[in-house]
């Protein structure tokens, strides 16, 4: 548990010691002071429960409409994250099946090939599963950027404004690139170029980025008359070129004034130079397997091929750089702008530095134009450090910490950054990426730790996430998925979680029971049924109470409440209210084992029914039937003693049946002996008398004696 880590210095989830400005939440309780007591406790999730208690005297003295206190819930605002609560829940829901699927695969793989765990085939297969998992999660975090080119494309749209990507997705994709995407290792720099193209907009904090530069240019584009006179235009192009957004550069170049039909004649040389640069840009060799359709650039899969193409391309550039046409180009901004673009492409470090804004942009520009074959983390790391010296990041950059954690191959730092910036969801799900192809991280995160109470870091984070889920009324039902994947403490916590859910409403209870069934927690399920049974019983819903106790097979409680039921039955099973009882008695069923003494009621009902038939004037068959039920009841050990006399008294009619005696000698003797037992029992203390007239006993005795006489005679 997180609380076990007492020393903040050793804590795995770092917290910042700085305290922000206090936030004031005004409370509208509408009560008049003074208060006797104020109680503050945590409620679900991020809310506080504040209870105001008035002194009892003050409450009673004040006007009637004022109550003795009030309870308020105060929602403490979230830290203004980019993702709102509803969105967070959506991500939580959708990632459940993906996570569960991966866990299932892990379990089946473990059981199948425990022997060959370390083998390469197993690793390769597992890595494939994690790749699928990662792609799936990434798609949940946001739709992939669509490169759909509409038929009518606005020439002035440089940067497409689509759905804003989230930092969460950006961070996920970054980790995927480094930890899971094996195929990308050979062309890691180009993967980062792509990543930056998708998420550059997110890097802008207080500093500007190339993305924001282009956006501001796009806004002004409509109003600019002579675009090539603007410094901004040239700067934006060299920036876009530096990070490899070739399509944007080509598009911007074609907006150059010299392309206009009316000016083509007298700006021929200028136009030729612009076009030459555009062609160079669009034929730039790239060290990658392929590019999206209609993107400029030429791809080379192997180093030698690329190197040859690169040398050739540079040769063309050098030729253009020394060409005599520059002198003939009369337009100074164009001349300087184009030559600057050439400098960027030639890999002039100072040009690259001035063209980029963020350290990562600078880093990427070095990959593209200076160090194409940088693939080891160490090399990237040292380059990134150099870039950072030139362009120091601002404090609030989530990227820097994460990136350096990855580059330094420091799993703990990566986890801590994920946790600090993105919270428990990210950590829980990202651990799968970190351990996918890294034995060291695998060991680190799965090692059982004494200071964590014997659980691993992975389990700790899953538990923390499950607790976050449990704190919300709608997400708690998915917490079991995560708890079930915690081998040490998961099931204990799951049991606690299930115990603490409300049981008042059958629908929610049935959902709980379903979870119990899924995880084979039969004892919890029967406990919940018992709790519900007692809840309903106490709230006067006797039928529901009995039903749930029957479901729990709780004979002890059923016996106890049977005694209470008999009280009611003795009093209220008069003939008109009998219909109400019928339903309950039906529910009890006829099986003695589940009803716990309540099967008596079943026979009692049958007896009452046939008695009713007799009273309705039906034939003596009915009377004989009723007597049979009576004998059964009197024989049965489950018939409570206090019912004996009322039963006999009710059947006085039958005992004195006019036509012929309905009972034979032995049956009469049985009833007489029961009567004798009863009169003896009356002398014992604690006997509870029925509500019959005092002469009831003697009249029954008389009737039985008469019947005995008649039976003997017959």
């Amino acid at each position, binding site marked *: 548990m997180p609380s076990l880590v007492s020393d903040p210095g050793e804590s795995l989830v770092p917290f910042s010691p700085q305290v922000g400005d206090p936030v004031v939440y005004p409370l509208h309780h509408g009560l008049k002071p003074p208060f006797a007591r104020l109680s503050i406790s945590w409620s679900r999730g991020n809310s506080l429960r504040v209870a105001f208690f008035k002194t009892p005297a003050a409450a009673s003295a004040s006007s009637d409409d004022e109550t003795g206190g009030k309870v308020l819930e105060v929602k403490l605002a979230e830290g203004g994250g980019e993702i709102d*609560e*509803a*969105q967070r*829940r*959506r991500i939580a*829901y*959708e990632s*459940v*099946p993906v996570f569960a699927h991966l866990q299932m695969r892990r379990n089946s793989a473990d059981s199948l090939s425990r022997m060959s765990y370390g083998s390469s085939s197993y690793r390769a297969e597992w890595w494939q599963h994690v790749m699928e998992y990662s792609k799936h999660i990434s798609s949940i975090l946001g739709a992939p950027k669509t490169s759909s080119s509409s038929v009518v494309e606005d020439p002035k749209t440089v940067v497409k404004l689509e759905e804003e990507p989230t930092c969460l997705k950006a961070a996920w994709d970054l980790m995927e690139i480094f930890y899971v995407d094996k195929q990308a290792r050979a062309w890691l720099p180009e993967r980062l170029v792509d990543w930056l193209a998708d998420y550059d907009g997110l890097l802008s904090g207080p500093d500007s980025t190339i993305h924001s530069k282009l956006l501001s240019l796009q806004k002004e584009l409509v109003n600019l008359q002579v675009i090539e006179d603007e410094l901004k235009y040239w700067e934006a192009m060299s920036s876009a070129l530096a990070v490899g957004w070739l399509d944007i550069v080509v598009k911007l170049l074609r907006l150059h004034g010299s392309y206009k039909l009316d000016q083509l004649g007298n700006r021929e040389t200028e136009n030729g130079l612009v076009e030459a640069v555009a062609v160079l840009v669009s034929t730039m060799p790239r060290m990658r397997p392929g590019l999206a359709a209609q993107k400029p650039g030429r791809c080379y899969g192997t180093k030698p091929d690329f190197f040859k193409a690169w040398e050739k391309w540079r040769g063309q550039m050098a030729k253009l750089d020394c060409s005599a046409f520059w002198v003939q180009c009369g337009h100074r901004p164009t001349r300087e702008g184009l030559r600057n673009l050439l400098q960027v492409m030639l890999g002039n470090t100072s040009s690259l530095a001035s063209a980029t804004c963020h350290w990562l942009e600078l880093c990427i520009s070095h990959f593209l134009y200076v160090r194409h074959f940088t693939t080891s983390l160490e090399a990237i790391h040292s380059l990134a450090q150099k870039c950072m010296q030139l362009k120091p990041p601002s404090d609030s950059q989530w990227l820097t910490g994460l990136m350096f954690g990855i580059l330094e191959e420091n799993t703990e730092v990566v986890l801590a950054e994920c946790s600090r910036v993105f919270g428990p969801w990210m950590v829980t799900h990202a651990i799968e990426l970190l351990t996918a192809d890294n034995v060291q991280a695998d060991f680190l995160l799965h090692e059982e730790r004494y200071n964590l109470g014997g659980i691993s870091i992975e389990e700790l984070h899953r538990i923390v996430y499950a607790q976050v889920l449990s704190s*919300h*009324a*709608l997400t708690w*039902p998915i917490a079991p998925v995560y708890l079930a994947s915690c081998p040490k403490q998961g099931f204990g916590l799951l049991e606690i979680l299930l115990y603490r859910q409300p049981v008042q*409403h*059958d629908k929610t209870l*049935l*959902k709980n029971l*379903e979870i119990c*069934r899924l995880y084979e927690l039969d004892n919890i399920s029967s406990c919940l049924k018992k709790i519900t049974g007692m809840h*309903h019983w106490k*709230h*006067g*819903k*006797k*039928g*529901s109470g009995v*039903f749930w106790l*029957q*479901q729990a097979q709780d004979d002890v409680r059923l016996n106890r409440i049977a005694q209470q039921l008999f009280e009611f039955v003795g009093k209220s099973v008069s003939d008109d209210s009998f*219909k*109400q*009882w*019928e*339903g*309950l008695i*039906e*529910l009890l*069923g*006829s*099986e003695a084992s589940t009803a716990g003494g309540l099967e008596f009621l079943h026979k009692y009902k049958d007896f009452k029914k046939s008695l009713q038939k007799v009273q309705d004037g039906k034939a003596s068959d009915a009377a004989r039937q009723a007597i049979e039920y009576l004998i059964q009841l009197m024989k049965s050990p489950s018939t409570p003693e206090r019912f004996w006399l009322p039963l006999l008294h009710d059947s006085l009619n039958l005992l004195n049946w006019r036509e012929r005696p309905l009972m034979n000698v032995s049956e009469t003797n049985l009833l007489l002996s029961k009567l004798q037992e009863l009169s003896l029992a009356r002398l014992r203390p604690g006997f509870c008398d029925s509500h019959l007239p005092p002469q009831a006993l003697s009249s029954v005795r008389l009737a039985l004696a008469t019947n005995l006489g008649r039976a003997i005679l017959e």
Partner: protein
Amino acid sequence: MAEAYIQIHKFPQSKSINAVRFLPPLSAFDRPIVAAVHDPDADVFSVEIHALEPQNPPNLHLQSSWPTPSRISSLRVSQTPQKPIIAASTLGGTLHLFSAHPVEASIESEVLLADRSFHSGPISGIDLQGTGTELVSVGEDGRVNLVRVGESGLSSNRFFDSRGLVSYKAARWASPSEFATGGLGFSLQWWDQRKPGGPVSQLKGDWARGGKSGMVHSIDIHPSRKHVCMAGGSSGTVFAWDLRWQQQPVLLSGAGPDETIQPLSVSEVWEVQYDSYIQSSNPVSAASAKILPVMVCLEDGILAVLKQGEEPLELLAEPCAINCFDIDQQNPSDVICGLEWEAIAILKRP
């Protein structure tokens, strides 16, 4: 397989969906939908009307919303396009009737019954007559109430009170004077307004011997076969109770005395409705003896059509529970369902 052609569209709501119904069409263009929702962030329960725009892909947008004091347990609508009425019962024991504006699909007014003498504790099921003039409500408190919807308001009349000895879970009209209720132990009761004092006949709770007992969650009665009462409940149980063969219900799914019938699933069947869209594959055998196809939604995320003696046809398999659904009466190829993970799904069958 037919599933390949079913179009499924999901609309995240960021609210939990407790019940959904199609409203009768008000205009030629949009299809109005009523949903009972709970917004956990604001902690507000409400009845919402959404308009389903029929273009491809369809679009769902909120038209109007009306708060209720607690969670809605049951939602019904009248089939009267000129003056649609929406009835909602809550777990707090209150009954709300909303009249919708016939053109704008917005809620105009509300009348409610919130009296402890009406129901004490949760109302578990209600049903509205198709004409919207009369309503039956049943609750865990064991009361069966009849509510008359008049011009002047609502007048309720306690038809039966078992004083908590029996709890009822669902109710459904069979005819203007008869209705059926269902409850614990898979029991069903048949009532007749003309014969007060108790159920006219009942299916005893212990018929499912051998199998596990459970409760009925939903009942449906087909307008053309009023003597058959279709019910769904715990442990994947779906059965039909024919008043003419009272003692032995016909099991469509679930564990029962007949070993040959396998349950579709062992989780809860939350709702059942006759599916008039699915025609029996064999028209000869679809004669009166057969039970009509019925659609069910389950806790383990399945929406399926059951036919007697045939394999169930799965329409939707979700990773989360499907808590409620409704079939469009006017256009039965369309089905709407409420998913546990805060979304509404719309299915268009080919």
